[in-house]
């Protein structure tokens, strides 16, 4: 019988530990498919974050190292500068990238490090149990904003992709979502392009993925997916934020 569908070759058979309805599994799979399609499994090195995806290395047949919380792009920089011929990517959540690791991501991007960052934005700290993230929306309730995020007290949802787009080291930044099949197809295209930018030695590339965390959003998986369309994309509109890959 002809096999027409299966797990990407660059991934292991280990079942994901993620909660029901979580978007991480989808994003992982997209990365796996892209690695397969580009034929780079044996030259890819990944740096997962501290957060829900910390054990991402169990799911890939790809060399990976842990990094301290937020220091992911610095660790990836060290690896890439030793192996400029390898493909190095970071996988970071909104806490890792947009809070504790803002310094590292801004400067890695600005140096034009030949890295690809997959930035998963689900507006909450998942692993620690649903605290406010820098990307939490105004009025959104979390365990540390029980009355809803109040901009006067704690500021606004940070638009890190737009911030990174103004640095000259970034070549390609796109915001996508994994809440429905049409968006997932676009997300994969974006991830593939981000890896291609690195393969072409152009500079820093990043894909921000709006993802659902039903458990910490206190929604059913379906409601969480709808919430991305109806609410989250109002603050974080989908689409290409910067693309200099054709220049």
């Amino acid at each position, binding site marked *: 019988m002809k096999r027409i569908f299966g797990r990407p070759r660059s991934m292991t058979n280990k079942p994901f530990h993620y909660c029901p309805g979580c978007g991480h599994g989808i994003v992982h799979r997209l990365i796996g498919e892209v690695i397969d399609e580009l034929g780079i499994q044996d030259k890819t*090195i990944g740096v997962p974050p501290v957060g829900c995806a910390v054990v991402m*290395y169990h799911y*890939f047949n790809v060399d*990976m*190292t842990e990094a301290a919380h937020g220091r992911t792009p*610095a*660790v990836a920089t060290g*690896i890439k500068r*030793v192996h400029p011929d390898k493909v190095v990517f970071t996988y970071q959540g909104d806490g890792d990238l947009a809070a504790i690791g803002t*310094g590292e991501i801004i400067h890695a991007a600005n140096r034009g490090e030949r890295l690809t960052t997959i930035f998963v934005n689900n507006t909450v700290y998942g692993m620690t149990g649903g605290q406010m993230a820098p990307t939490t929306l105004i009025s959104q309730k979390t365990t540390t904003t029980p009355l809803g995020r109040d901009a006067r007290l704690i500021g606004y949802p940070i638009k890190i992709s737009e911030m990174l787009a103004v640095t000259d080291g970034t070549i390609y930044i796109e915001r996508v979502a994994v809440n429905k099949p049409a968006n997932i197809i676009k997300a994969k295209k974006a991830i593939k392009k981000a890896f291609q930018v690195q393969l072409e030695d152009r500079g820093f590339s990043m894909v921000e993925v709006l993802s659902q965390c039903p458990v910490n959003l206190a929604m059913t998986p379906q409601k969480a997916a709808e919430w991305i369309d109806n609410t989250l994309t109002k603050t974080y509109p989908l689409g290409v934020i910067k693309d200099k890959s054709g220049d």
Partner: protein
Amino acid sequence: MSEKVLMCGNGAIGEGAIQAGCRHYFGYPITPQNELTAYMAERLGELGGVFIQSESELAAINMVFGASAAGARAMTSSSSPGISLKQEGISYIAGAELPCVIVNVMRAGPGLGDITPSQADYFQAVKGGGHGDYRLITIGPASVQELYDWTARAFYLADKYRNPVMILGDGFLGQMMEPLEIRKIKEPKLPEKTWALTGAKDRKANIIRTLMLKVGELEEHNKKIQNKYKRMEKELIEYEAVLTDDAEIILVAYGTCARVCKESVFLLRKEGIKAGLIRPITLWPYPSAIIRKISNNVRYVLTVEMSAGQMVEDVKLAVLGRCPVHFYGRMGGGVPTSEEIVKKVKKLEAHRPEDDQPLAGRHKGTKRKE
């Protein structure tokens, strides 16, 4: 043929690293180690290596993490406040058993302190600094030549034990110029770094991590690295002993202070006081055994530091009450002079033994010098 040049300590550290094959340096400016950063920028530029002036100390130590994980000989350097910032990364590097060299050209603290020399980061270097049960091989060189030699050797030790090594200098050593013999560094061949991240080509994927969630796994990992530390304690200890054979009193000091103490020993000998010096070169593992042995034969030990008294705790642990352990130190950029140390010894010589607190298990009583 080796070349002899006049060089500052910071430059010597840099050249030692280059000679050891270090081609990846990551650092952030801070006085009094800036000559080292500049030296690496220039030399690695010439050699086609990688030099990154990072956005922070956090980034620098984590770039070292990455470069080391990728199999390269990597180094970062800083001075006290910057080394505090690196502690998170150092803990991860030690936990992940990654080899690297970290240089601390100590300045006076606490806080921003001053740019003057100090030895007040001893606790931080040898007792932990970051979180968790880990150890750094810590070296306290005392001359420009030793900074060169030991930095070069540090890369070998780091690779051999898969452990971070800290070169613990101070602003004095970093800044002062001395003749330096740039000699070839020959070390035994080490096994290939099969654990490094190079792309999973024709092999299983390599994973570097410190997170161990499986029940018992982290305890086993801790036992493994503790066993490694025990091995280091057996294999690595180095010290210099000066006129210790007939010594009645012993000074213990490292780095800059040891050089001052050496002069004090000669001055004291001229005055008929039989002094000697133990200079620990490895600060961790610590040369406890030799200090313990000598403490059986001397009236007391005097520890001299540019701190409020940090290494003196390790001296006391080595002596274990066999004789009194005294301390003389300067802080906040003060450097003990040989005359000050002589004065301190003379004061101790005039000290009446009956003023001493009784010590259990003492091998010898304190004899008062007539």
